[in-house]
């Protein structure tokens, strides 16, 4: 076990572009916009930044995305890379950046991600490019959409634990209730369990409202060392725990259809932070489809395995619930521009921990957990953030 990163690195800037339908900026321009916004939030000049991480874009893929972004902004970083995927990768990259800061490879790192799935691709293109996560020889020929891949896990959870479509629907209802309090969210009109169950069936058991949005949008944060973090305009938000888990890429090869590597990711993050699920004031859980949230609640230890449905109903994950989940509205109701999706959970967590989340500000927000996954419940990363370094 190497030296622990707990409390050594902090987030000192957070900013989102407008999300939803943003046709006036393409994916690349959205990313540049996000960077300019986050520099303003952190009170930095671009010359102060020596690390830049972006993600590739599905609507405008580039071989050297981060380098092209640096060129566009005329930045000359000494630490620069683009990651190829989103979901859990977005959080994994945060601990890579934290390691770079702790080892002196960079002092001030901007992580910026954007894409235009709504305006930059046709509906058909967006569907095909995302479903290409399937195995090209033994899965893709069967014609699954991304919801269909996740539906396989949802159906297995129902068969194994007696989970019902109503339980999945509660996740969508809770995320929408959070989004109703967030002026930036793409979808804000409240919905009911019946609305979800009566929406068009996409891939059993997933209805249209069990599925996340298709959006344009960008988001960025700034990371620096805990020592330097005290000199920034906003109170720092410290990285307390980080952990990954990887069990497969293709769902047909999953070790288990209902228990994911969120379990290992969470255990590793809790161990680093010296905290447990009961210490969390909120959780931002990757909600590309509603069953994912149930599985994450269970695997991250918020309830026993198989009891995600009853937990959501009895304890509540909406505003005022025992465990507020996705306080910005999540991918289901805030936005889902593809690879950048998890970023909005990160910026929202920073604002909750700063105490600047407006109408949706939680009464107590000292420590929060973030979890994201990519592939098809494949690649997991958990982050634990807090207001205090210790």
């Amino acid at each position, binding site marked *: 076990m190497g030296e622990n990163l707990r409390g050594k690195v902090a987030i000192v800037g957070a900013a989102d572009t407008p999300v939803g339908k943003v046709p006036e900026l393409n994916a690349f321009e959205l990313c540049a916009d996000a960077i300019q916004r986050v520099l303003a939030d952190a009170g930095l000049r671009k010359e102060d930044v020596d690390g830049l991480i972006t993600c590739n874009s599905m609507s405008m893929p580039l071989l050297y995305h981060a380098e092209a972004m640096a060129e566009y902004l005329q930045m000359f970083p000494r630490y620069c890379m683009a990651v190829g995927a989103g979901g859990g990768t977005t959080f994994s990259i945060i601990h890579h950046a934290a390691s770079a800061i702790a080892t002196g490879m960079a002092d001030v790192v901007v992580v910026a991600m954007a894409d235009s799935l709504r305006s930059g691709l046709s509906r*058909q293109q967006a*569907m*095909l490019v995302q*479903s290409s996560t399937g*195995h*090209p*020889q*033994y*899965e*893709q*020929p*069967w*014609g*699954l*959409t991304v*919801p*269909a891949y996740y*539906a*396989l*896990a*949802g*159906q*297995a959870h129902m*068969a194994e634990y007696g989970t019902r479509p109503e339980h999945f629907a509660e996740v969508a209802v809770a995320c929408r209730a959070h989004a109703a309090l967030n002026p930036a969210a793409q979808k804000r009109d409240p919905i009911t369990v019946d609305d979800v169950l009566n929406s*068009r*069936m*996409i*891939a*059993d*058991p*997933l209805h249209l409202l069990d599925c996340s949005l298709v959006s344009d949008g960008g988001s960025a944060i700034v990371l620096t060392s805990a020592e330097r973090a005290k000199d920034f305009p906003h109170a720092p938000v410290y990285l307390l725990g980080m952990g990954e888990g990887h069990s497969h890429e293709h*769902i*047909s*090869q999953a070790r288990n*259809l209902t228990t994911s590597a969120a379990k290992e990711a969470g255990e590793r993050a809790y161990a680093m932070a010296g905290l447990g699920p009961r210490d969390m004031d909120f959780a931002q859980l990757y909600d590309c489809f509603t069953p994912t949230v149930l599985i994450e609640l269970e695997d991250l230890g918020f309830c026993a395995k198989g009891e995600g449905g009853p937990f959501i109903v009895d304890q509540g994950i909406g505003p005022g619930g025992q465990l507020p989940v996705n306080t910005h509205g999540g991918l289901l109701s805030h936005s889902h521009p593809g690879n950048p999706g998890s970023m909005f959970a990160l910026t929202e967590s920073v604002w909750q921990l700063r105490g600047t989340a407006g109408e949706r500000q939680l009464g107590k927000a000292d420590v929060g957990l973030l979890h994201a996954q990519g592939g098809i419940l494949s690649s997991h990363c958990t982050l634990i953030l807090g207001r205090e370094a210790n």
Partner: protein
Amino acid sequence: MERTFPTSSALSDAYYAGCREGKLLLQYCSDCQQPQFYPRILCSHCGGRELAWREASGKGHIATFTVVRQPVSPAYEAPYVVALIDLEEGPRMMSHIVNCDPEAVRVGQPVQVSFENWSETLTMPVFQLQG
């Protein structure tokens, strides 16, 4: 618009050649005797590099499934049932459940392989409900 055909490689070509002959082939490791799916250049259990094709019984049961109501492209006609099949021999694979009422499909049901010609050169292994 056409369906997504499997990309070609020596191993996938050999596997789909088996399907054209009406055989569902699994790789067996000559060292540890374990079967595996999908085909690989090495045994995913023990790392053995000597693998032999053997015909599977084609029997299995549904580990999970979904009914795709909105197709991924116009080349696929909805609704269609996609399932993960646990083969009698152990390995799990993805396929379609065909010739069935999609509303009647359940986790755990026994299934049997059959073969469907998608083109003059491509035959796919699909499954039908048993009993």
